[in-house]
């Protein structure tokens, strides 16, 4: 094993015998776009055929509960840190293997690409399997979490060890290039955007 390591490093150094100077990286692109446009974010999400609900800070709980009821879910899990009131007792479950839906918050969201990023070390976002096995994922995004572009999100995610970037529901185009939503992840993504 260590001989392989030594040999690969030796080959790398031999290949670079003349030490090409490392080029300076031109950062000639939009580095920071600031806060994201909520309407653009909602448009992008709909483009992926995610469901979008816009609401206000006072009505988040009502919006979440209404979404879950409309969906007709009987068992819903939630990340441990989300407000208890979001999931009514009669449908609350703690088994993500059998639950039909899951509710979480997020770490950051990107308007330009319609992306939501989960930090799996955060209590209101939960471990990775939680948002993977149920067929329906409802995520609550607060206005200050929505940034303009990818560089803003990458900056906000520095140091976050375990992340999942979600852009619409799971999808495949593997059969004759026809898009099918939902192969392995949740087949429906619903986003409650808090203005």
């Amino acid at each position, binding site marked *: *094993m260590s001989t*392989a390591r030594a040999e*690969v*490093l030796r*080959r*790398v*150094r*031999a*290949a*670079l015998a*003349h*030490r*090409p100077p*490392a*080029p*300076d*990286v031109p*950062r*000639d*692109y*939009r*580095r920071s776009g600031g806060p994201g446009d909520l309407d653009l974010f909602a448009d*992008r999400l709909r*483009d*992926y055929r995610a469901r979008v609900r816009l609401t206000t800070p006072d009505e988040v709980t009502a919006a979440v509960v209404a979404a879950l009821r409309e969906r007709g879910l009987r068992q819903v899990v939630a990340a441990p840190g989300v407000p208890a009131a979001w999931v009514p007792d009669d449908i609350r479950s703690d088994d993500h*293997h059998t639950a039909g839906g899951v509710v979480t918050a997020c770490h950051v969201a*990107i308007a330009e*690409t319609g992306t939501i990023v989960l930090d*799996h070390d955060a209590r209101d976002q939960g*471990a*990775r*399997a939680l948002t*993977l096995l149920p067929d329906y994922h409802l995520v609550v995004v607060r206005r200050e979490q929505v940034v303009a572009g*990818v560089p803003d999100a*990458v*900056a906000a995610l*520095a140091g*976050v*060890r*375990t*992340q*999942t*970037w*979600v*852009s*619409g529901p*799971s*999808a*495949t*185009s*593997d*059969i*004759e*290039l*026809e898009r*099918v939503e*939902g*192969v*392995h*992840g949740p087949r429906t993504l619903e986003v409650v955007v808090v203005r």
Partner: protein
Amino acid sequence: MTFLGMPSRNLVGEPFPRAARAALGNAQLRRNLAKATGTIRAKRASVVAEVPDWAGLRAAGAAIKDAVLADLDTHLLRLEEALTARGTTVHWARDAEEAARVVTELVTATGTTEVIKVKSMATAEIGLNDALAAAGVRAVETDLAELIVQLGDDRPSHILVPAIHRGRAEIRDLFRREMPGVDPDLPDDPAALAEAARRYLRHKFTTVDVAISGANFAVADSGALVVVESEGNGRMCLTLPRTLISVVGIEKLVPTWQDLEVFLQLLPRSSTGERMNPYTSVWTGPTEGQTSHVVLVDNGRTATLADPRGRAALRCIRCSACLNSCPVYERTGGHAYGSVYPGPIGAVLSPQLTGVRHNKTLPFASSLCGVCYDVCPVAIDIPSMLVHLRGEVARTTAPNAESAAMRALAWAMSDSRRWARALRAGRLGRALGRRRDRIGRLPPPLSAWTDARDLPRPPRQTFRDWWETR
């Protein structure tokens, strides 16, 4: 043990002209490919046009990769240190055989007889599935297209949509025949087929305890690994099994987390033509109680690095934009290239990984129209590299006049202004050849080329112009 004497058979097939002739006779393949590449080309073009700073991102992407390559030893050591500090065990492999052996030993040590796999070019390159099978371990591909290919005992024909050569009815028949527990009346609509795969694989995800992945990016300063995907099978494999083994080519590094702000824009738009792919997973060290291993693979990459004129092929982020744009690929498909890396990038990367002696025809599998360079998100100048490799092929075979011609052509093409001038000269040549549509002879040293064949009269519009405007 050296790769030169023993080219991985996953990078070499039968000579391209012969394989291409067979592929060209397959009408279904050509229809599917034309539809697929045409659709993805259009999607890519529209989402790339949406980004006002695409040229800046492309320049940054190329420079970041060049910077990594220029100090690859330092970055590899930093990555190793970061991974080890987090609790991941790092292994190194000089060639395909060694990489496959390391992974196989790790797998058999767990006592499992089955592993689940995230689609990964690197594991295809090292022939991992065969190595595992020889040790009595079944590798289950979990990407839908890879699963179709695997059930059909077939080979992938495209990096991104490996089963693009199969029609829906064929896939239905395959599932009915090969997928345990499938509905015998399974219909052939893609949603039903995807649902069948979902059910079959869900069982595997929740019962198989070892997963094997690649990585799209490895961040040297933190040890974060990144997998970019669409279906969610990657998330399943990365999350559920207790042991995760990731096979990573040594060129997959980026220096810092921040550099991903460039690649997470370049890759999805160039690849599937989406603003962002459905799922990207990032993990740093073993997560949620898992055991994690990383196998760093050379297998010809250091030889590629050693050639200053071929080195840039290692920038490749496997987006497949060059495949979808290539008029040769669109007609022959991936199988004709005989390598796990097909298309324009395959035509330069495969011969470099194996040594050109072992892959003499691939550098000629191109019309040098240049579209691949234009669409490449990390600005790999594939046409110039092909010409350079043609020169290498000529140099390593018998020295003859053709190799001199190739070197002259390589010289003309190595500078864009020179090449533009040559093209214009070609248009002038048209006037000379007005009577016939062939040019008989060129002056030396290019005569070595025209002695053997007629040079077609240059068209009014260059191919590059026509392909872009059609």
